[in-house]
């Protein structure tokens, strides 16, 4: 296998090197790639969509259809992980551990036996003991709101600066993942349950596709945001800008939900009780 792999790799490499010789020089402003289609995006983006960030306008408007399917790819990955890993029959673990909230005393309940103590004074612990790190917990707890705020900013400000729905959504998702990593999965699940993340992702893509379908219902082509001028103030050009914003919000929601969903499935092996 190793030799075969080496032969294939060298062969592919040789073919690619062979083609690279004919490439236009690196960074050449006069290469065909920079002359044929893309100048229009740069020159007309402000005029046609009122979005100065050309990447956002191309992403969500000129080639918005690609982006819709990109979000669908993420969504289907979420569903795929769920389908593959989620176990429905919950088997109680052999022993459970609890810590008393006030005293910090830890004790273990064996063989699925019930305990008669008031459970709200106790917190369940993971079966694999992880050190309780005060600094990490506190720092992350105070950091997370700011991370989330930043994520929202990135979504909202994608028109003017780098960023957009996708990046913002990943940051929002990462904040929940950070909560799970710094505390434990249970805390993260309390903040954002399984059902919430599983409904967030189709709902986000639905916002995207629904915006497109709305344009279609209003008599324009699919995803032609001009149609939204009938519903939103500011004329057809601003309607494009607003349409892009709507779509970015949808992408953000879908990506946030799915990232958290995939993480939960991978981290708890689909059991949703404990994990990373």
């Amino acid at each position, binding site marked *: 296998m190793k030799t075969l792999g080496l032969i294939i790799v060298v062969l592919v490499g040789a*073919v*690619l090197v*062979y*083609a690279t*010789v*004919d*490439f*236009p020089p690196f960074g050449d402003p006069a*290469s*065909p*790639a*920079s*002359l*044929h*289609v*893309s100048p*229009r*995006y740069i020159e007309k983006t402000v005029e046609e969509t009122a979005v100065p960030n050309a990447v956002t306008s191309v992403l969500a*408007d*000129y*080639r*918005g*259809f*690609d982006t819709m*399917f*990109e979000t*669908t*790819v993420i*969504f*289907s*990955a979420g*569903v*795929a*992980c*769920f*389908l*593959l890993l*989620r176990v*429905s029959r919950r088997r109680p673990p052999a022993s459970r551990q609890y810590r008393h909230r006030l005293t910090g005393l830890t004790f273990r309940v064996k063989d699925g036996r019930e305990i008669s103590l008031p459970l709200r004074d106790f917190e369940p612990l993971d079966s694999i003991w992880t050190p309780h790190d005060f600094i990490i917990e506190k720092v992350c707890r105070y950091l997370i709101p700011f991370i989330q705020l930043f994520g929202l900013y990135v979504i909202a400000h994608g028109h003017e600066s780098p960023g957009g729905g996708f990046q913002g959504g990943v940051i929002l998702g990462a904040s929940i993942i950070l909560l799970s990593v710094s505390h434990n999965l249970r805390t993260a699940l309390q903040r954002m349950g399984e*059902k919430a993340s*599983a*409904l967030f*992702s*189709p*709902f986000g*893509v*639905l916002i995207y*596709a*629904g915006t*497109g*379908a709305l344009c*279609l219902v209003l008599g*324009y*082509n*699919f*995803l*032609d*945001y*001009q149609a939204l001028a009938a519903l939103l103030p500011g004329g057809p050009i601003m309607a494009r800008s607003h349409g892009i914003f709507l779509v970015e919000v949808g992408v953000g929601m879908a990506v946030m939900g799915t990232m958290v969903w995939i993480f939960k499935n991978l981290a708890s092996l689909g059991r949703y009780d404990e994990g990373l």
Partner: protein
Amino acid sequence: MSEHYPALLVILPLLASFFISAAGWLRPACCFPLAVAALGASLLVSLGLLSIVIGGGPVSYRLGGWAPPWGICYQVDHLNALVLAVVSVVGFINLTAARTHVKKDFPERAGPFYTLYVLFVTGLLGMVVTGDAFNLYVLLEIAAITGYALIAMGKGRAPLSSLNYIFMGTIGACFYLLGVGYLYIVTGSLNMEDIARLLPPLHGSKVVTVAFVIMMVGIWLKMGFFPLHAWLPNAYTYAPSPVSSLVAPLMTKVMVYVMIRMVVTVFTVDYAFGVLGLNEAVVWLAVIAIVAGSVLALAEKDVKRMLTFIVVAEVGYMVGGFWLGNRPGFTGAVLHIVNDALMTLCLFLAVGNIVYAKGNSRWESLPGLFRTMPWTMGALVVGALSIIGVPPTCGFFSKWYLLLGAIQGGHYGFLAALLFSSLVSVVLFFRIFEMGYFEPLGAPHGPTHGQDGTTTVREAPLGMLAPLWITALGLILVGLYTGQIVGRVIRHAVPAMMF
């Protein structure tokens, strides 16, 4: 409304998949009806689109309202209207048969299963309808990711086979993407027709040659063309029955379509057959694929696994027929996309019924099946006759065109391979019929046989038999209407340069 058909075709199942996913959480009983409604709607739209194209010629649709080289456009001509109809028909028929399997094997996961099912069909439909090279990649990945997950649902070795498929599929898709990038760097465009317009002055460029080669290798990897087929048999064998009867008929055929579309529309026939002159070599590769697929099928002792090798051989038919580069060869290849999708569906559905009743489809479980499951085996016979190429069924006609193409192109190796493979199919299927018909129920044909009371084997439920027989009758109907299909659709799809 009909001007929006190209978009609706993809949008309706896409929107429905979100609702199915939500329904999986809120109201699981709704999942199946929603999926049927979605694929039914897209089936109707695709048939409408086919009739529009037959009546009034190609249709194009601008997504987002942007003109083609800047925005993405959908381009429906005779070739892809036909393939669209086939994809939606197969997806729909198989969905109706899937219900019983899902109820039996994973009832609690119906929601995500149907979501992925509908998304898979959406991805394939989008791949066929699109006129943008990069958009094709994104949809290819949707079909691939949903396919990986669906295949990994199977028992036993399925996850390992699926992982293997993930690696090979990713290499294939990335090679395709790299090819698109190479075309982009020399032309600056992503729209297929626009690239075709810009390419002729660049025919001597090494970049275009390598783009062509690497794109073809990527597509061949995805379709399981012989030396690159290693992932295919395991993935299709260990997948759950409703999944293998979905993926096996559709994925390979759609990739064959993508190959034809790339060569005909993007690189143009002139370049692929004239400038590069690879056709002779590729037809010989196809000959090897056909022979190897048939021989490997002979060695198998499991009906489902045997069928996967037949799929490998059939891919060789279509690739070879297309690369013959003449009119009958092209007609045969396109007709075979239609016929083979239906034939494979019929056979895999029949095998799905056997697996449903017996638990597996190995040789040991075959004896006496004609008595216990007469309807299933009847449909299996029709499908098998079609694969062999017996006249009233459709398989005969596409093979006929392929043979004509081989004779016209003077390619007797391909001719011999076709005949050889038909002969092997006769051997393969008659062995199955013999075991199912002549060997008595209690024959000592396997160690596990007869212990658990084989009398419990009953015919599959009506919900699985009806789709199976609709497909089987479809095989004969398509065979009878071949003249119509060729005359009204495929004739217009053949590029003008082919004779």
